[in-house]
């Protein structure tokens, strides 16, 4: 919890020596509280003061990095219970589980690690692979981890075994890659702490109750392991929701350091749809790492989408630059469409136009990054804005016709648009982008 200016002042020498550049210690303290200067500017600060300020400045939920290199992911540092209060910051890492008794594990892991999908102009992917010591044998586990690591070199790994000997054998292979070790339990925590501290790797803590998680994390930090992940052992969606909510609340509202770590949920179910449901609850409600059992693109894509949606900053919708775009190579007779600069809207429309095989002029109006319906409701996408966008774009000189297709959701604007744009014919397009190819083929061609 951040200290106030007065609290900081009490920790300073209170001599008003001015060497920090401020007239008084109180002024310096106030500036420190606003993060407008650095403690190091005070030559007389004591070690205790430094420690107290460091502790107070530490985030309530620790940022933990898993893996090394470009594909390493960092989770934690969250500061709010509800995304509208500010934003969720570090996207949930989606990880697939493979088992060391599966002869095809390297192939399966490589497929999942190489999975990518395009959405709103971004390439999205999963974050890592969890290898589980299902065989119960340390040598088998180490060989499986090596095979997976060889098959997907860049991918962060999670080593899952409650047997310290198996973890030790696997760390001998990939210890330098900063894998997450899963998990320390009440039964094995001393040995796991020694392994994690020795290899400098993050460590997950597994227990069924909040008290046990807090107890274990306290013991582990005392043993020198700072980068922890909490894995509450929930049985179902209800447990996941309750445990994750209470842990997040304890960390943020009670400043309970013992649980100030990212959370990890195993979403595996027999049925792939039930697994999606469990993962959805975890993504919405505070899990930083979600482990999936079904290696299935029909599961990955919706969850990657949900993660992107939930972690979008509510104050900053993903936008594209408002201007005239060419889809394909349009000529003077090609259709002219107009839409808004909400990224999803733009990519839905441009994607469908591209799929239609008919080149088009796509005019994107500045609607503060909102969708057609939202910006229309907010008065940011009306006939005046549409007319202004058309005129300022200079598109008229590019065309041999004066026909403009407006989105079906704003069909009611067509009359006003014709008034604002004398000489133009306003055509009403479909409400949904997915219907554009058919519209271009039938309505536009007949016009």
């Amino acid at each position, binding site marked *: 919890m951040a200290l106030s200016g007065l609290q900081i002042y009490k920790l300073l020498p209170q001599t008003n020596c001015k060497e920090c550049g401020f007239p008084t210690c109180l002024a310096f303290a106030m500036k420190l509280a606003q993060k407008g200067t650095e403690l190091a500017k005070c030559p007389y600060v004591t070690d205790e003061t430094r420690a107290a300020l460091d502790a107070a400045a530490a985030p309530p939920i620790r940022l933990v990095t898993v893996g090394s290199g470009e594909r390493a992911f960092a989770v934690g540092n969250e500061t709010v219970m*509800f*995304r*509208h209060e500010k934003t969720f910051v570090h996207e949930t890492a989606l990880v697939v589980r493979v088992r060391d008794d599966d002869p095809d594990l390297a192939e399966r892991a490589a497929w999942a690690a190489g*999975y990518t*999908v395009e959405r709103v102009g971004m390439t999205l992917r999963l974050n890592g692979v969890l290898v589980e010591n299902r065989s119960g044998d340390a040598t088998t586990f180490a060989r499986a981890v090596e095979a997976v690591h060889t098959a997907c070199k860049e991918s962060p790994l999670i080593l899952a075994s409650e047997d310290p000997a198996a973890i030790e054998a696997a760390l001998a292979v990939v210890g330098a890659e900063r894998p997450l070790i899963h998990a320390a339990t*009440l039964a094995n925590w001393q040995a796991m702490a020694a392994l994690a501290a020795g290899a400098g790797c993050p460590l997950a803590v597994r*227990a*069924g*109750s*909040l*008290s*046990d998680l*807090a*107890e*274990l994390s*306290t013991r582990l930090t005392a043993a020198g392991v700072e980068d922890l992940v909490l894995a509450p052992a929930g049985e*179902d*969606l*209800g*447990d996941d*929701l*309750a*445990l994750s*909510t*209470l842990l997040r609340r*304890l960390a943020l509202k*009670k400043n309970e350091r*013992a*649980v100030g770590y990212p959370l990890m949920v195993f979403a595996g179910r027999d*049925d*792939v*749809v039930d697994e*999606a*449901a469990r993962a*959805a*609850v975890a*993504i*919405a*409600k505070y899990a930083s790492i979600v482990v999936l059992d079904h290696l*299935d*693109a*029909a*599961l*990955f*894509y*919706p969850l990657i*989408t*949900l993660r992107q*949606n*939930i972690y*979008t900053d*509510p104050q900053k919708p993903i936008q594209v630059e408002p201007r005239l775009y060419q889809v394909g190579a349009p000529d003077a007779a090609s259709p002219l469409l107009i839409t808004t600069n909400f990224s*999803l809207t733009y990519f*839905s429309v441009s994607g469908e136009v591209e*799929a239609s095989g008919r080149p088009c002029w796509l005019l994107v109006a500045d609607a503060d990054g909102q*969708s057609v*319906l*939202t910006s229309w*409701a907010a008065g940011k996408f009306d006939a005046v804005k549409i007319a202004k966008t058309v005129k300022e774009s200079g598109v008229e000189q590019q065309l041999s016709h004066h026909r403009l297709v407006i989105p079906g959701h704003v069909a009611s604007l067509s009359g006003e648009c014709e008034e604002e744009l004398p000489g133009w014919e306003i055509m009403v397009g479909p409400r949904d982008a*997915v219907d554009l190819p058919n519209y271009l083929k039938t309505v536009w061609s007949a016009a």
Partner: protein
Amino acid sequence: MAIEIPVEKWSGAVREVTLGATTDGGTRTTTVTIGGETTLPFLQFEGAMPHRPVIAAEVVDAYPNEWPAPLLAAWGDEARDPAAWARKAVAAGAEVVVLKLRSCHPDVHDHGAAEAVAATKAVLGAVGVPVIVYGPGVPDKDNEVLVAVAEASKGERLGLANCLDKNYRTIVAAALGNGHVVVGQTPIDVNLAKQLNILISDMGLPLDRVLVDPTTGALGYGIEYTYSVMERLRLAALMGDTMTQQPMICTVGEESWRQKESRAAEGVPAQWGDSETRAVIWETTTAVTLLQSGADLVVLRHPAAMAHVRLAIDELMTVGTVEALTASSATA
């Protein structure tokens, strides 16, 4: 280690709204009550959630040939007859039937009040669960057919949808005079939702006969806006803002199945996976996510999604006690 659980107590509560009536003109065999929460969704260790969120199934009075093939296949020939469809929906687990009067749309059959009443009566005769009736979504036509349906079904405590800022006077009057509930829809905005509730309430309709539809954005298509508006409405309700205390209804099936991810079987990237699995996951995920932000009633389309969402609700309703969540097995 002793952990003190930070339990949150709220001063406000969501209103209870009952759909369907069994007496005084009502011919339902069961009624459904939603709302009543004194806590955030499912957190029963610190407040009450007296009613499970409810699953409604969508039934259309004119064969919805624009629906994707997996949906039409799932409902089969029953989709050609609203009464048979409603029976099949209830057998598949629907606790409420949503009847869409699509036939009244000028672009479909342009049916009028008489056909709308006949379709509603047929569904009311076929099933005993409560029914929510949607007009075709064309303002004048909505008023014409919904008023006729409201009058012909006096006392059934139907849901009448949608009640918008444009037509609320007509719809609320029809509900007032005939003992029905209205579904007030506003476009993803806390203040617009509140404002419509105030207008409805000013006409004298008790707020225990108002559901709020905050407008659903599907997964990938604005779900985050709906999610946060619902979360803010629910927090305001629990803090005691009386004009936000309505149970919320989400039209998940319609929105989810409108999207390309649910409609396209071919010509999409291989990374999207099997089309029917993806579509059912799209609908289920949209529903389960919005249940986290306060949905009290989700309207679904695919029977498989209904089954998966039901299982999720079963599990979410079993959230344990504080004692169970903190019990320690560690020895100091």
